[in-house]
């Protein structure tokens, strides 16, 4: 089910601008990997290359390779749409579809990919909402619009929507930055539960969050504004936060810069 991500010599560009330079890393399956680093260091950009969302932006391209287990997702005849079905994504701000009800939002990925059977859809909706710890809160109002939920509930709805299509990897781009501490806690608990089934990569600005939820942590930084971001080091979270190898990591984690 869950897949390993192998990144090799990856350089990411926006037009002529190089945003990320020479990243080589391995993201282990059934674990949570956190990306931390100052703004502009390219951690979100890197995350978006894992499901080829990066190339939605005009002029964006990559050099290097990203493998899901043994499949090169940037292979010449790989359909980005197929990659995105395997690698789900949760965004910074909750973005439920405003024209759809709560139930339809969760079913959106399945329905838009051609699943019609009402019974199966209902089962998948319930299952996904349960996995996202949202079922009890919304089971009586599945026919109500998703925009009526609170921010934290909307974000869990988006997670339910993402896992409904049964991806193997779940990418989360600062999923809690728009949420209050209680909702953040709910999402973090959810992440810990989901890691038994998925490979999870989470970008966060909140180092306590990285320390709480992740098994592995990767630290990125950039030498100056306008320079590309680089991976400084990646290790077990515990080691990264107690005894990192690199001096820059320690400075960042202890709050001396960033």
């Amino acid at each position, binding site marked *: 089910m869950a897949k390993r991500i192998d990144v090799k010599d990856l350089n990411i560009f926006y037009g002529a601008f190089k945003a990320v330079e020479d990243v080589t890393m391995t993201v282990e399956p059934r674990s949570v990997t956190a990306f931390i680093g100052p703004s502009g260091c390219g951690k979100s950009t890197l995350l978006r290359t894992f499901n080829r*969302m990066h190339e*939605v932006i005009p002029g964006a391209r990559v050099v290097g390779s990203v493998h899901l287990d043994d499949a090169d997702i940037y292979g010449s005849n790989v359909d980005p749409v197929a990659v*995105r079905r395997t690698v789900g*994504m949760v965004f910074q*701000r909750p973005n439920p579809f405003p*024209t759809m009800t709560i139930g339809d939002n969760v079913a959106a990925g399945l329905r838009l990919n051609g699943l019609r059977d009402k019974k199966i859809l209902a089962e998948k909706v319930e299952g996904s909402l349960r996995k996202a710890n949202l079922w009890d809160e919304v089971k009586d109002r599945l026919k109500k619009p998703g*925009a*009526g939920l609170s921010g934290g509930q909307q974000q869990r709805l988006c997670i339910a929507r993402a896992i409904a*299509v049964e991806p193997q990897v779940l990418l989360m781009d600062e999923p809690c930055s728009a949420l209050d501490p209680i909702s953040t806690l709910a999402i973090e608990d959810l992440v810990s539960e989901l890691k038994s089934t998925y490979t999870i990569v989470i970008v966060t600005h909140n180092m306590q969050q990285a320390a709480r939820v992740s098994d592995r942590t990767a630290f990125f930084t950039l030498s100056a504004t306008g320079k590309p971001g680089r991976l400084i080091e990646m290790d077990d979270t515990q080691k990264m936060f107690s005894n990192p190898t690199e001096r820059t990591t320690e400075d960042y984690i202890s709050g001396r810069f960033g």
Partner: protein
Amino acid sequence: MTAADVTSDSNLNVMRPRESAGGFNHRSRARALRNHIARVVMWTAFAVAMVPLVWILWSVITKGGALLLNSHWWTNSQRGITNRMVGGGAIHAIEGTLIEALATAVMAVPIGVMTAIYLVEYGRGRLARVVSFTVDILTGIPSIVAALFIYAVWVTTFGFQRVGFAVCLALVLLMIPVIVRSTEEMLKLVPNELREASYALGVPKWKTIARVVVPTAFSGIITGILLGLARVMGETAPLLILGPYTKSIATDLFSGLIPTLPTMINQDRTEVLQPAVDRVWGAAMTLILLILLLNIAGRLVSRLGAPKT
């Protein structure tokens, strides 16, 4: 606070707020005055804008309203009615106008909406700029020019008769830019996050547009189509050049005569005899009413498809 209060107090430096006991500044008199002036100007502008509108509505309703209360107006045509006779109806012109508008919309809406989708979702580089520029030019085309262009193609070049369909073609030229521009604005308002959310679920781009982007912008698109339709229904130049009026019911877009409300108004507008003059006002009132009804219908439709909150 009035302007007189400020000007009479000549010792006051109106530009500098005074300190009060609490440490906060008093609201400066100059600012209050400016606020007052701005408010008066705004309300005056509003009143000036309303005057012609109310005036038109008042004249049309008082002079044409009575005819519309007679059921014959909605069931009969003007067949056999002369300018001395009272009676007859406008059903021929109402039907003609609605058929023209419908046929125009059937042609212009798909082209307009798809052009807008191209410009917002796909258009990059040179071709998109050319398309956008062309739409700008179309927006500025006077209706008489559109009508004469179609006349040149339809009648002069191909040698066809002047028929309702030719009128529709001219109206299509006028309606497309309105729809393209309004639809474009509405599609641009759809947050990119929704497109990305859809892509991230493994939904292809065309399906994202059809099932997420367009539904989200639906009510705005409908409003734009209605604005275009309202413009087209009142348009007269193409009718004068390509759609000869008749007093009888004629609903075939390909067989010559096509009575419509604008041409009905035009037909009798120089009359001095009261029955004909009344009918001119009646037709004007009917046209306004039709457009109003269309707008209300559109509001209802767009409410059904609007984002739920």
